[in-house]
């Protein structure tokens, strides 16, 4: 169905994030074929120019590969996909640290908070 986009970030970047997350989650795996630019544009409700840019940038980032006459596929370079996972983790950590920082928490407090959170979850699981 048509996607909702945030107003504070270019749509092409939000779409790259979406596809990257799907790959990391395993919803799309190495060698999977992506829809055509047109299909994906209709599906998400964006313009074909924007989707073309998404595909071009993802190819540039080495996340997907375009095979002439066959379409676009998630790369089979597992090392790159592992890197992508690390990059996404880094991205989310930075965003988290920044948000918490704005509230006045130090990184030490965040680490302490996270291990406490983990302890509590373990206890609840028991």
């Amino acid at each position, binding site marked *: 169905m048509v996607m909702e986009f945030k107003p504070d970030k270019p749509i092409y970047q939000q779409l790259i994030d979406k596809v990257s997350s799907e790959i990391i989650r395993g919803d799309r795996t190495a060698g999977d074929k992506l829809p055509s630019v047109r299909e994906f544009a209709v599906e998400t409700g964006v313009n074909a*120019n924007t989707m073309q840019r998404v595909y071009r940038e993802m190819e540039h980032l080495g996340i997907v590969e375009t095979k002439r006459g066959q379409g676009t596929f998630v790369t089979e370079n597992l090392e790159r996909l592992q890197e992508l996972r690390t990059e996404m983790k880094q991205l989310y950590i930075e965003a988290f640290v920044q948000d918490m920082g704005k509230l006045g928490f130090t990184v030490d407090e965040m680490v302490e908070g996270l291990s406490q959170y983990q302890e509590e979850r373990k206890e609840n699981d028991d």
Partner: protein
Amino acid sequence: MIELQHVSKKYLLKKALDDIDVSFPIGKIIGVIGENGSGKSTMLKLIAGLLQPTNGEVLIDEKHADRKISTKVAYMSDIDQFYPFFTVNQLVDFYESQFQDFHREKARDILRLMHIEGDEKIKHLSKGNRGRVKMAVTLARNAPYILLDEPFSGLDPMVRTSIVQGMIQYIDLQSQTLIITTHEINEIEALLDEVIVLRKGKILGQQSTEDIRMEYQISVVDWMKQLYEGRTKYE
């Protein structure tokens, strides 16, 4: 490319457009936005060759825009303009007889996508379905320039969604350019490459929508509001 050079349009004493200079790049979806009476519809009619400027010149691929420009420009009016006694099929036949670039198969595909039956009479269609039919016959033309005047006004959200999907699917931006006037920007924000903001016959701004999100981290609607309030300077 479409160019307006020093274009003014007066209706008696009222200035609808006031010394406008603007160009529309090809291969993009461009929104012309602004409050009621800002000159959006006048601008579109000038490009369609339906009106002539009081001053200045409207050029389409370097040719003067007059009535003959309709071979290059497909224009969809914001009012109902079809013979009510036609069936949808007869309307398709009529369009085929009028426009060389009209593709019957494409029209059928779009009508099917929008769940419209060919043997229904136009006058028996709901307002939403008339809007869909209007869109279908306009998009079925392989014209290099497609102009849509307020394609969403008075239509419910379901119809809007199907119209947006029709646009994405059936416009080929390799060879076509789409210009839409609207004040319902939220509906098509994700669809636009570029926006032109009008106010009282003047251009307040023209910018790529991705650049607006990148530079100001705000939606196109908020950007327009800021321009209207004079908070963002545009050069």
